């Protein structure tokens, strides 16, 4: 991960660490903090704790997003401090609705000049974000909102498994992982398991991201903690609740970063500090998918 971040993240880049509630690659975020990257534009539909921590660490000048909250808990205090008080530095916001963000990724992934969606009419979001425009339908049925393509310089996407070439399979909440992967200029895949190509090829419909567009594969078990990976571990809800308290002041937030990010050299050390018992408590049990037959057709 250290190598992937130093190689693919440059100061000033547009960086996406995506995943809808699941698959949030905290391992990448923490390494970006440790490497003291600067002036990043952070892209994520739901900034979540990961961007709260990164904004608190001062790596970001801007954020492109659609929902700013600690899911199921409350506010993201570090981001609010940056926006409301400029601590540790001001943070520019570029804001969409969820569908608008998805549409921007879709336009970026499919090389379209814009993507149309039925949203924004009658909303003040139009005034707040001049990139949201309207085009007239040539079929005489009025106008429709459009958003421009978004192509992050680099995306970190977590998944259950990939082969060494980056052919990536994921299951559970698919979120926008596929669209971001195709939209990004560089893609780093972070997985719970690196598997043989043969494992991937047994179920080709489950391959959401082809190795073709992947620049690096990082093997980082529990790399999405405290978010979750379907079938591998549960969300560490206590962590989310604790963060609601921990992040309330700049001082306590910094103390946390010192202890859990700067104070550990890498993810392995973070996990060791977290402790085997805590990780074991996140075991989700088993519920298997069953198999389907693709046929041999020899």
């Amino acid at each position, binding site marked *: 991960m250290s190598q992937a971040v130093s190689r693919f993240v440059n100061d000033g880049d547009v960086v996406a660490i995506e995943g809808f509630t699941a698959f949030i690659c905290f391992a990448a975020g923490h390494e970006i903090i440790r490497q003291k990257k600067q002036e990043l534009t952070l892209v994520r539909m739901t900034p979540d704790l990961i961007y709260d921590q990164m904004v608190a660490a001062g790596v970001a000048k801007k954020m492109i997003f*659609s*929902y700013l909250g600690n899911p199921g808990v409350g506010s993201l205090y570090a981001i609010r401090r940056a926006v*409301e008080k400029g601590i540790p530095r001001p943070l520019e916001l570029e804001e969409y609705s969820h569908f608008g963000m998805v549409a921007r990724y879709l336009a970026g992934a499919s090389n379209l000049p814009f993507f149309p969606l039925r949203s924004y009419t*009658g*909303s003040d979001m139009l005034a*707040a974000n001049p990139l949201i425009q309207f085009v007239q339908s040539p079929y005489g049925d009025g106008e429709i909102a459009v958003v421009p393509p978004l192509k992050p310089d680099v995306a970190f996407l977590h998944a259950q498994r990939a082969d060494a070439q980056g052919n990536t399979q994921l299951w559970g909440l698919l979120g926008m992982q596929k669209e971001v992967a195709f939209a990004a200029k560089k893609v780093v895949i972070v997985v719970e398991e690196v598997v043989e190509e043969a494992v991937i090829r047994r179920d080709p419909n489950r391959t959401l991201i082809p190795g073709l567009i992947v620049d690096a594969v990082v093997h980082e078990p529990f790399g999405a903690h405290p978010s979750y990976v379907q079938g591998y571990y549960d969300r560490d809800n206590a962590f989310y609740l604790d963060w609601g308290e921990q992040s309330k002041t700049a001082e306590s937030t910094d103390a946390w970063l010192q202890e859990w990010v700067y104070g550990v050299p890498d993810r392995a050390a973070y996990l060791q500090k977290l402790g085997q018992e805590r990780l074991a408590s996140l075991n989700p049990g088993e519920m298997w998918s069953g198999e389907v037959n693709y046929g041999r057709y020899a």
Partner: protein
Amino acid sequence: MTQPTEYTPSELMIVNAARALKGKRVVFVGVGLPNIACNLARRSHSPEMELVYESGVFGAHPARLPLSIGDPTLVSDATAVTSIADLFMLYLQGGLIEVALLGGAQIDRYGNLNTTVVGDYAQPKTRLPGSGGACEIAINAREIFMIMRLNRRAFVEKLDFRTSPGHLDGGNARQKLGMPGLGPQVVITDRALFTFDNPEREMMLTEVATGETAESIQSHIAWPLRISPDLRQMTPPTPTELAIIRQELDPAGLYR
């Protein structure tokens, strides 16, 4: 046999939301109160109701009370789990959602919602979460039901920011803009129920909870309230409804 006769404001909202959902087949739902309300509806009068979560889950059968709309327990044993793009394009914009439940920090008399900022947008006093999916849900879902606590900071004369369109400036403003959905139909609060069942599509008091009057409700609302000519008393939660909530849907009392 002890029958619960006391109930909390949350329980009142849950019960009223569940009743309003009677007969609805496809409901777009978040976690928390709306989730419990939908499940109460399913276990009482609407067993056929299908829940769609913004996270991409259809036909969830959670093995535990989900903590967020992205809880993995919603995925395991669900009927279908889809990408966010498909969820918004095919399910929501495709017109499959009959009712969506929304809330916000501020609401005005036409059911427009603010979930973005308190104060000025560029220099906010309080930065709120923003739209999430609310803006397009408000536009595309066939009907919108709101669930919010009633208080004067929330029921305002003028929104600081209009995140999600309700009936805009009232009347047929939505149709003129070509919005597919019908907009807000009901506002469910802990003290009263409101509908928009008038030509101006203005929020109108239709039911008051036990102990409340039109006057007491007005005191929580910033604008001069429109009152239904046949204002009714709300039927309190029944023992059966409360039992389902307390014993089956929220035994830990998280949402009490």
